[in-house]
């Protein structure tokens, strides 16, 4: 039996297609199905050309094939509105759900911070927070694992071209969800998130600022070390994740200035915000697959 877990991607848009391209290089995940709702969609046609099975009747069209094709993990890149139903149906068949929507039914997952715990617990639904969250929460956690953080604030600046209509119509969801995860996953007692959209041409690379206010005077050496270690962890799945400046210290303030360059698979390199979502999602599924291969966890039993 191959060690690879077989996967379905729901939502053949930019994110789904980028994810598919990354997955084709994966040692642990094998893309099998691409699921959409419009037979004429370019994303489904692209997937079909890449040799992937496609269906245009939503998750319901995939369900009859789940057991036969041994689908073990699904990535939902649709919307918060349909995610809950998608997740319920696929979880019932023993499929692990990686949620790239803002639905956040399952626990937040930021790979270098808490993925190992989710994998060990075999969480059947994990949520990938937001692009800004993936880019910044590792840095908040890098500080909070050294000493208590009273307040964590992140500023994500993204190019106008990389922000889709869904995010624009509900930009509050970004700020709320990210701020919540800065607290829950990042370990700050209070979290705040700000997003700025910049229309410059050529488009600017995603950049992020992370400010932490520590409760006591920061241990500069320990925090600097921790930050560099954390950057290296993120770089394992996003090679273009870069600490441009910092950490700098000013009283109890610790600030890091990051830039996120994407791999340029399907999405342009400047769209590091989208790349870090797809890369983190794939990394999440891979960790589950590794833990299964090592016998740490077992997949839900299925009758063959």
């Amino acid at each position: 039996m191959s060690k690879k877990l077989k996967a379905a991607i729901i939502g053949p848009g930019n994110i789904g297609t980028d994810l598919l391209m990354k997955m084709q290089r994966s040692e642990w995940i094998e893309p099998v199905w691409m699921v959409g709702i419009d037979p004429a969609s370019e994303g489904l046609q692209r997937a079909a050309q890449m040799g992937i099975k496609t269906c245009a009747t939503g998750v319901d069209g995939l369900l009859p094939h789940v057991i036969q094709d041994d689908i073990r993990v699904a990535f939902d890149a649709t919307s918060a509105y349909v995610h809950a139903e998608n997740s319920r149906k696929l979880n019932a068949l023993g499929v692990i759900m990686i949620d790239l929507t803002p639905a956040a039914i399952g626990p937040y997952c930021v790979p270098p911070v808490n993925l190992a715990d989710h994998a060990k617990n075999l969480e059947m639904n994990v949520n990938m927070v937001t692009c800004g969250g993936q880019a910044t929460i590792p840095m908040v956690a890098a500080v909070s694992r050294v000493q208590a953080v009273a307040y964590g604030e992140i500023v994500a600046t993204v190019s106008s071209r990389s922000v889709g209509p869904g995010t624009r119509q509900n930009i509050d969801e970004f700020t709320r969800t990210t701020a919540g995860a800065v607290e829950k996953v990042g370990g700050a007692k209070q979290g705040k998130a700000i997003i700025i959209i910049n229309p410059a041409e050529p488009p600017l690379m995603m950049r992020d600022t992370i400010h932490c206010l520590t409760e006591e005077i920061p241990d500069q050496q320990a925090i600097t070390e921790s930050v560099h270690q954390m950057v290296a962890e993120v770089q394992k799945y996003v090679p273009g994740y870069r600490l441009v400046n910092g950490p700098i210290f000013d009283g109890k303030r610790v600030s890091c200035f990051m830039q996120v360059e994407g791999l340029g698979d399907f999405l342009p390199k400047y769209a590091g915000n989208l790349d870090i979502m797809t890369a983190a999602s794939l990394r999440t599924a891979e960790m589950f697959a590794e833990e299964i291969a090592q016998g740490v966890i077992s997949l839900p039993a299925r009758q063959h």
Partner: protein
Amino acid sequence: MNLQGQYVKLHDMSLRDGMHAKRHQISLDEMVTIACALDAAGIPLIEVTHGDGLGGASVNYGFPAHTDEEYLGAVIPKMKQAKISALLLPGIGTVDHLKMAKDLGVATIRVATHCTEADVSEQHIRLARQMDMDTVGFLMMAHMATAEKLVEQARLMVSYGANCIYCTDSAGYMLPDEVTEKIGALRQALPTEIELGFHGHHNMAMGVANSLAAIEAGCARIDGSVAGLGAGAGNTPLEVLCAVLKRMDCDTGIDLYKMMDVAEDLITPMMDQPIRIDRDALTLGYAGVYSSFLLFAQRAQQKYGVAARDILVELGRRGTVGGQEDMIEDLALTMAKQRGLI
């Protein structure tokens, strides 16, 4: 120019844009005293919020002396005729802040986006209209988009429910001809019941001239700030604009001498630094940079030894937009490293 007999609604910014110049440290007492004096002078609309709008309290923009709730809660019950407005930048403030402001009695909400990104304002504008507020779509850094683009973006905000659209010269970059062109295009494109407004900064000393051009081209509302207290070289000095409009027989309903007294006796004494067109403020206007970057760039100069003017010019070259204050320290660090200063 003939503005005789025309009415224009002047909107004071000293207690919101002025928060930038005061590093958001205006006391509750100062807020209430100034708002009451403006109310008595006949100003119809006064903005009270953190400089970066509702929810602006942050490391990035500065923590204020008091919360938005405290400021609004202290000022609104004291007003006899003036209405209070609040600013909200989607991406910083949320609909929760908007509801709080409405509950406290804020009459006018101004939803501000970069001039090309109006579609992030949909949920906030829709809710404000549902709550029956005077709802303004506030297109910032308007010098960075063509008249056609501004019209397109203004139409989006109107489609969400905005009853007034602002052309906002956040960088104090525009010259009167550009104001005439852009306000003229908006006036021509939008239904007559949609009001237009202009918000100027005085970085090129064009605040008053631009405001006159805006009124002539069809603006019903003009922003200014008593004694110019605002970001950069400040906003259009309101008592000066009042005097000019009075000379032109343009009706504002405002008592000029009372306005002069607020400027001289209340605002000027509380300034941390003179609000004037110094080298750095002029650079903002000249290079087209967001006015509230001024004090951040000057602090970065102090800390890292890179001239504020150099930082501001580079920020302009990179096309930074409102809210990117975090870029200033980042850029100053990078420039200081390149120059071997750190």
